[in-house]
């Protein structure tokens, strides 16, 4: 289990991370979410032991993270890039040797992963000769080849086509299922929604909301309805019962105030709109993200 307690990182003029705490259990994917500049990268760097926090403790399996622990860390940074003039196998060798893997292990595992990700043919090609997606696969291999106990993935799916996204997703899930601790940092809320069981949403270095995703959704609001309609629905946002509206042409997602009865609301609007379908929905993570960030920005 990875445990982060009261983490704070102050730079001269800004507090990049302000007193955040969370725990990541093995066998689950933890989503580290937030807009640009929220403090995700700083948090990741502190966990990776690249920078020291101003205060707070990071520990893994109840031991503080030390220089020896780096061999059990896997990291895929958001911005990709590899040594362009070097061959695929040499690059993998180099990074794996930095994780203290023996030569034998490296060649066995490199062959396994290159084969599994469908890039075995490019083993001896220079990186620059590979397509962008294949380069990303090589980088993915360098992050996981040493079978890390803690894997941190920053936007692992960006730049992949749907087929490769699925391949990467399956690989990540196999890691999770073998009891690894996995942190996923992303802007793609639908991805996070499908993969993460727990999340931490950061904004301006502070926690905005965290915990079990199902519970967050329940807390956030059960009073959401989806209305498919014909006609002009722009009046919806001005109704007193309505907290917020997302209009999408032929349908709208409406967040009602807690005390509002859905049946009464339907009756009220059915005079003004031809309603094809009226259903209760869960808020999407995307919705939670936008609303929570807006609220936190207003504060």
């Amino acid at each position, binding site marked *: 289990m990875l445990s982060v307690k009261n983490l704070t990182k102050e730079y001269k003029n800004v507090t990049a991370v302000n007193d955040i705490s969370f725990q990541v259990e093995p066998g689950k994917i933890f989503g580290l979410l937030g807009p640009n500049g929220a403090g995700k990268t700083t948090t990741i*760097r502190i966990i*990776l*032991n*690249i*920078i*020291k926090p101003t205060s707070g403790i990071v520990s893994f399996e109840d031991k503080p993270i030390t*220089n020896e622990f*780096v*061999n059990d*860390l896997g*990291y895929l*940074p*958001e*911005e*990709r*890039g*590899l*040594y362009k*003039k*070097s061959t695929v196998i*040499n690059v993998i060798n*180099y*990074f794996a*040797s*930095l*994780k*203290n893997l023996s030569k034998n292990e490296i060649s066995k595992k490199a062959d396994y992963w290159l084969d599994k990700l469908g890039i075995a043919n490019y083993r001896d090609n220079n990186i620059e000769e590979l397509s962008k997606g294949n380069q990303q696969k090589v980088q993915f291999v*360098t*992050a996981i080849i040493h079978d890390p106990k803690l894997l941190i993935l920053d936007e692992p799916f960006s730049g992949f086509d749907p087929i490769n996204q699925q391949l990467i997703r399956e690989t990540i899930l196999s890691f999770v299922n073998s009891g690894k601790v996995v942190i996923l940092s992303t802007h793609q809320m639908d991805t996070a929604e499908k993969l993460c069981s727990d999340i931490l949403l950061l904004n301006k270095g502070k926690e905005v909301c965290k915990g079990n995703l199902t519970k967050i959704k329940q807390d956030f609001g059960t009073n959401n309805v989806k209305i498919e309609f014909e006609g002009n629905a722009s009046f919806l946002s001005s109704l007193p019962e309505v907290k917020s509206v997302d209009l999408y042409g032929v349908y709208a997602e409406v967040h009602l105030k807690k005390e509002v009865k859905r049946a009464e609301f339907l009756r009220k609007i059915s005079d003004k709109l031809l309603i094809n379908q009226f259903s209760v929905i869960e808020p999407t993570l995307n919705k939670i993200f936008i609303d929570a960030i807006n609220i936190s920005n207003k504060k």
Partner: protein
Amino acid sequence: MNKILSVAKWEFWEKIKTRAFLISMIVTPVIIIAFAMAPTMLENHESETTKLVGIVDESGLYFAGLQEKMKEEKLPGDLPKYVLVNLTPDTLATSDENDQLIKISDKKVFNNKINSYLLIKYGGTDSVQLQWRSNATANYKDISNFEKAFNEVRIDLKFKKEGIDPSLKGLFTNQVSIQPIKITEEGKDKESDFLTVFFSSFVFIILLMIMIMSSGGMLVRSMLEEKSNRLIEILVSSCTPTQLLTGKILGLSLLNLFQITIWGLIGIALTGATTISPEIFENIGLDLVYFVLGFVFYTGIFVGLGATATTEQEAQQFNSYISMILILPIVFAISAIQNPNSGIVHILSYFPLTTPSIMLLRLNISPVPLSDIIITISILIVSIIISIYLSSKIFKIGVLSYGKRPTLKELINWVKEE
């Protein structure tokens, strides 16, 4: 330690494969050899056509003798090197007429009737003045040929006039010159001439410069690449910055030792062919010590500064600042050779940035006391440790900061940060 070796191995093998390295490995010795051989080659390259040289002899005494002497100068194929034309009229009376004659002769040069002419001004009895008049820069070989011939003719004439035995002529023409000998404690006398000392020291200083600049540039560029594609984050999440930095310096130093070895082999091969004087390799052991220490020291500085660079242009700037410091010893080189024990030379040899190059110079000029060698090597070793320590502090923060270049104040803060 394993990780340091992994980094060193990577830096060594990946750099050795680059085109830039191969080019510098081949081109550098070619340039140096070209520079070393250019003067000799230029000297030997002479025009192969006969030159028409006029003689204006106000005294009327020397033309015949000169013509006789110049017949000895031959071009390949037994053609005469010079054909002499007497431009002097039979009678010359007034100085006005002399001036007129010079004007006419000058014109002949301009009209390409003759290549050039020798003006022998006669001031009566033994006083003569010579001018070589041509419309291009005078060829020093021609001048020295005529000078030599004229002086011999002059001595011949004088001897004849005074009735002196012509065999005594050798006393005047063959001058005795002083042979400089550098004495050593081992009792082995060595011929030491200025040029040998100059070149043997310079070859090493220039090699050091070229190496530091080319590999420093290579290092900074590769760090910039790692920084711009965020590879550095993977690297520093796999090993400590100090390991990374030490590995890079180690790998690069090995790479350059390899390069020196190759160059050394080329040098030895050329020494065998007597193109390069063997004296260059006289102090090779100590030369190499200073060379390697100097290289490691400068590389340490490069790593630290390189970590703060955020663009290629900034990297270029660092490179040029450091080259300037490297060139400094060359400014002092001449005075160091002339006076190896001067105060400034001593001071500069204790200043770590100039220690390597000044010591390379001093070693070849005069015996350096053992105490000085020990002190300067210690200074270099301590400087290397300090430079790597400071660089690793700057490196730690520098490699993770993008965008704006840090100010000096920020750099000092980075060094202080725990």
